[in-house]
């Protein structure tokens, strides 16, 4: 053990500071990623300022489209908007079947979802240097250098493919479900 290593409270405080700064500061996050991958820190030329962080606005259209599909097939919005405390578990169970069957169909039809790790949960596995930190999250006793060996707690999910319906010009995605008026 190196005598100059910080103790646990120091490490915890650093981790929390780093956590927030990684979220807020993309340049810091970039450097942290390099450090974490075991790459040497780049030398920043004197006088160069870090660029301001740029966050993307995600397109709300496809989110609304997916929500509309979940409502159309699985009554998802109806379910969320209802006050479940007023009903018995049997009643909620009946409705949950509608939601589960329909939403599952939407997900199966439009998203190809696969586990990030194919090993069984509970299995021991080793992560080599340079693993994708976005796809595998380290938890617990996160110290030392890769390769890391640990237990797979959750396999993770990743979307391999997404195919949403194509929409006509002028289609209002904000209408998740039209009102129905029976004549």
């Amino acid at each position, binding site marked *: 053990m190196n005598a100059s290593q910080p103790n646990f409270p120091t490490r915890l405080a650093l981790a929390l500071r780093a956590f927030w700064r990684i979220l807020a500061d993309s340049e810091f996050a970039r450097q942290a990623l390099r450090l974490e991958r075991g790459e040497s820190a780049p030398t920043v030329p004197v006088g160069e300022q870090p660029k301001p962080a740029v966050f993307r606005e995600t397109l709300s259209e496809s989110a609304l489209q997916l929500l*509309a599909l979940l409502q159309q097939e699985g009554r998802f919005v109806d379910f969320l908007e209802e006050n479940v405390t007023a009903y018995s578990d049997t009643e909620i169970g009946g409705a949950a079947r509608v939601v589960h069957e329909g939403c599952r169909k939407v997900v199966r039809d439009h998203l190809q979802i696969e586990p990030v790790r194919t090993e069984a949960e509970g299995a021991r596995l080793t992560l080599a240097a340079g693993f994708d930190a976005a796809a595998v999250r380290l938890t617990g006793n996160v110290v030392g250098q890769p390769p890391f060996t640990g237990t797979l707690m959750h396999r993770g999910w990743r979307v391999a493919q997404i*195919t949403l319906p194509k*929409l006509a010009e002028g289609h209002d995605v904000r209408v998740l479900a039209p009102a*129905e008026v029976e004549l």
Partner: protein
Amino acid sequence: MIDARYAVGIDLGTTHCVMAAVDLTASDQDDVAQWTVSIPQLTAPGAVEDRPMLPSFLYLPHPDELRPDDRTLPWGEQPPFVVGELARAMGGRTPIRLVSSAKSWLCHPGVDRRAAILPVEAPDEVERVSPLQASMRYLEHLRAAWDQHYPDAPLTEQDVVLTVPASFDPAARELTAEAAEAVGLGHLVLLEEPQAALYHWILAARGEWRKQVRVGDIILVIDLGGGTADFSLIAVTERDGSLELVRVAVGDHILLGGDNMDLALAHAVRAKLAEQGAQLDPWQLQGLTHGCRNAKEILLGDAAVETVPVVVPSRGSKLIGGTLRTELTRDEVTRNLVEGFFPWVDASARPTSRARAALTKLGLPYAQDPAMTRHLAAFLARQVGATRDLAGFEDRLPEGASFLHPTAVLFNGGVFKARSLLDRTLEVLNGWLAAEHAPPVRLLEGADLDLAVARGAAYYGYVRRGRGVRIRGGTAKSYYVGVESATPAVPGMEPPIEALCIAPFGMEEGTQAQLPPQEVGLVIGEPVRFRFFGSSVRRTDHVGAVLEEWAPEEIEELEEIEATLPAEGRQPGEVVPVRLHAAVTEVGTLRLEAVPRTGGETWKIEFDVRGES
């Protein structure tokens, strides 16, 4: 044959359409480049998705119901109607504007198939369509979908194989071909669906099929789709040392399919809900039918499951409060489906039929007996002599056999996804065989129950070019016209009718029958009708044969046919003696012509002539 890049198979089904293709340039012998073509369609107003199947539904919206943009198809059209998934969904809420089962209407002999009669229940302001137009709408959509995928190889320039039920009569076949030709599919042949299913089995076995059947086999194809039950018998023979397939018989047209079964279950469950005081509207009944179909497949697929919950979602946004919950039990499925549609019966069982009420509402002539097994027993018994004259089959059937003994069976259609229905059918069939000391049938595996017909049809387009085994057989009926016999008239009695054979059994595509020696009189300028008959068992009648009497189960009366001789150059009212000539076109439809004694002219005889009924 044209210089097509693809052979395209189209299954124009009662409930779904499927399209498949074979790349002719990339295929060699048993190595066939074949796939199903996805069909873009509206799945919600303004939303288009690719789906493997096109539901055969046509919705005729009110002008205020959908904005033009909401009807936009990927190829830029905004037709005033909707086909496919969205049509089905909208029809569930507004059934009066939904056209369904157009195919069953297309072969309904009691209606004028060119008249705008659908939807039957539509109010007057809805502009109705004819069964023929509805079929054209589906084919137009499939053509546009194809052209979207393959803009350099438009469908009108490909070899198209369109499937029809084996039991389709000449009029229904001609109407199907007419619908296809009206949307520009000129390079067209028709193929019977059970044959398409067998072609798919051959394709899927990749050459190994020759090891799975042997000379002397009789393959029974049972095709149970959403709306129809279709039987065919195909014999395995030998010619010049290689195996050959001959379709020896097809069954009657039976309007009975998976939809009837799901509906039967839904009604049983609805009765249960009604006891609890819950009334369902049509939309909820549709939801219930859907739920019952899923529950049925679970119950019939897993013997360990005793009950499956079925829920009917509420109409309003209160999902939890309004959802009805019940369950489907194994006992209910067994009683309603297995015993109702596939009962244990003897080989001597026959479908029951009751006389129809004189004034029936305009509707489809659904089978009156829901028991598939009884229809099957009747078919095999009627066809007991189907292989009698086939070389190599003379001694196959033991003396005294009461029905034709199949040796192998191929199942097709979504109904058989419920494995226990397939098993029950096999058990019943094997029971009949055991009773006559015949070995049990072999199950031909490897079917693709939903997509096989379209895939097999595309493969047929390929083998037609001489690159694989073809099923021979030709027409599965001999045809007759009714002529009044020359006996003296007895007051108060209709003159007895005789049947004159004009087309023999087994006419191949692109062949002509001989001219019968007998002449009939046509009146110039007036439509003249003939009674028209078909027989699926009289295999040896030749053209010109005259039957004075026949057993009722031997010959079936079809719709009347009609000939009109134009008055040009002749005296109206004059009687011209003509002979009736039959041919089977390259497309696969029967064509009848009136040929006068002199002059080169011939006049087409029309099949679909009701109109005033």
